């Protein structure tokens, strides 16, 4: 009848499952898509990434050479990283940090 009894008692006796997040951080999984990073040293500012970005989060211009990411628009799909001919874009596995306005 009270089928959860055993596991509830077990829970009390065992250490809680909780990961104490800010204190105890788990290393991110390799290859996890946390946020976008771009290596300006290899980028040619060709603009492919900006054209293909599904969320229009990127703006690239050749003159003046600029590459801008709107972090709060980016949907971290990683498409830009896939598509960049120079492989200048990579996905950092750590999640992006919250910010104010």
């Amino acid at each position: 009848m009270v089928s959860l009894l055993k596991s509830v008692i077990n829970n009390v006796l065992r250490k809680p499952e909780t990961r104490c997040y800010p204190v105890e951080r788990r290393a991110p999984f390799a290859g996890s898509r946390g946020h976008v990073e771009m290596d300006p040293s290899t980028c040619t500012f060709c603009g492919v990434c900006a054209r293909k970005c599904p969320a229009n989060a990127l703006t690239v211009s050749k003159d003046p050479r600029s590459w801008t990411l709107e972090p709060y628009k980016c949907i971290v799909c990683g498409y830009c990283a896939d598509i960049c001919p120079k492989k200048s874009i990579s996905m950092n596995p750590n999640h992006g940090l919250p910010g104010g306005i």
Partner: protein
Amino acid sequence: MPGSKSIIPFGPQHPVFPEPLQLRLVLEDEKVVEALPAIGYVHRGIEKLAEKKEYTQNIFLVERICGICSFMHALAYCQGIEMLMDVTVPDRARYLRVIWSELHRLHSHLLWLGLLADSFGFESLFMQSWRSREAVMDIMEATAGGRVIISTCIIGGVRRDISEELMAEVLKTVDVLERDLEIIRPVVFDDYSVKQRLVGTGRITSEQAYDLGSVGPVARACGIARDFRETGYAAYKEIKVTPVTETGGDAYARARVRIREMYQSIDIVRQAVRDIPAGDIAVPARGNPEGEVISRVEQPRGEVIYYIKGDGTKNLERLRVRTPTFANMAPLLTMLPGCELANVPVIVLSIDPCISCTER
């Protein structure tokens, strides 16, 4: 005479509904005599947006029709485009698609169970099932790089492979999950208080379920053996799936169907991991889609129907999605009248509603 019945809004901002949806309830004491939904709180207009974006970008868009079974949305979409463009997906990709599909089904069903438990105030069960779900989320992130929206399906295959070691992890995860399910299953199947809340709640007959076009677990709980996986898309050709059915037609039967489906999914994952062939994971797709096609996939909540019409350009002419909750809405409307107010959330959640895909 005015004031002879109670009228209340149930939602949109209501903690038992994770998504905004308003039910206008007419009550007598606490008995519901009439329930009409007012929706549109999450309508975005994705179908129109899909006509503006390139068909390759659309994968990421359709994944966000709903975050819960996002992978299956991408799958249905990609399969449709592949049909239009006559692309044959490599075998390994087909198996990987199955693995991720079933992982999605597992996480979706566990999530649903937690929400259902919340609707009848069983906090521990919510905690237990969401805790088990984290194992799936972890393996999803490890294999695909994302927890919820994994963005691995692309036209012509998948974006990522799962390595040998990760395959072992996947197996380990489903083992853990199976063990956890042994805790959860008796609670849903046999617990007195849970049965009190579920048995007989929101019952519809098999006839009604058929006529009203219900899909997924709602239909299968009425004994209608329909599971689109039977038709053998992706690797379901090799991995046979028999629909899980129950006959009660009530919230309890729906819960049983989903719990049993989780075992089935675990089985499918195991088979897929065992049988997966080596090889490419994607073939390049060139050109643009042209013509119209219907692509269907069995999602955790039932069958999704994609209608895709391309005109030979990068942009589609029409993308239309009929999601499972949309099909289950009509049965829901017939379940509500006559129930107790306390059972309204239970019934609504028993069809595992997803408003975001219903409204797109």
